[in-house]
């Protein structure tokens, strides 16, 4: 499967709240961050959790978010970040 994002790309996490086992935390959904690194392909945990084999493999990215872009009123330094491991199917390009 061809890789959609590169390091440095701006991405937005889907504003989606599907039921079931998900590993994209609520606090980053709908938020914009930047691809910090590409992390290889893995079996999809959302499917492994139900006894499927988790294939086809999904690409994982580390996405870096500015704290100020996630939390309103964040009062730490503006360079502070939170890095989250997020799967490709949860991301779309951001302007």
């Amino acid at each position, binding site marked *: 499967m061809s890789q959609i994002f590169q390091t440095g790309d701006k991405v937005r996490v889907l504003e989606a709240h599907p039921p079931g086992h998900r590993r994209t935390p609520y606090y980053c959904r709908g938020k914009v961050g930047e691809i910090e690194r590409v992390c290889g392909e893995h079996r999809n945990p959302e499917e492994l959790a139900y006894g499927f084999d988790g294939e086809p493999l999904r690409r994982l990215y580390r996405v870096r978010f500015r*704290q100020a872009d996630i939390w309103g009123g964040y009062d730490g330094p503006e360079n502070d970040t*939170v890095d989250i491991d997020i799967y490709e199917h949860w991301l779309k390009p951001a302007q």
Partner: protein
Amino acid sequence: MADEREPHSHDHDHDHDNMDADAHALEHIHDHDRQFQPDIEDTPPERYELMTYAIRELLIEKGHVTADEIRQAQETLDSWQPSRGAQIVARAWTDPSYKERLLKDGNEAMADFGVDAGGAKLTVLENTEDVHNVVVCTLCSCYPRAVLGLPPDWYRSKAYRSRVVVEPREVLKEFGTEVEDDVTVRVHDSLADLRYLVIPKRPEGTEDWSEDKLATIVTRDSMVGVVNPKAS
């Protein structure tokens, strides 16, 4: 009950060190009719302790796993200690080429110390003059167990999991750690197969220390990023 406290020998196929008194008593009761007298807790085991033993027995009886496989898993778990992480950090502090290997591929570099993290991708983060890293798993308590052992109470707590992503500097203060405003704090939420190990900043005054001596000041908490190692 004349000899109830007298120790006796028989074939031991279990490991006393890895087993608590009740589990030990269980195995002996299975093995033979005569009751053995280990040091036993005075209070009865609680519900989830009993449930754990019961699950183990049923799994073995139904052939899904052997007692030996569980024992081996216990021994592997016991070999996972923060001292391993400390050795790795001490090597990184003294050997810049090792540090580069660690930052490039944690699994490959840590294999030098016999570390096998299974499917986990050990990812190493370096604290510097400009960046302070701190690790969490907000959804459960994922943690680089192969090099740090099992996570401590505070790492597993809802307080830490909920707050360190949103107010990391305040949480660090609760550990006695202040990070200056000109240092960036990066929180890492490890929710997939990556497991993070922090190389904390080497304190001043340790320039001529041996690797072994350095390892003694690298605490588990410093490798998660909530405290900085101290020279004294």
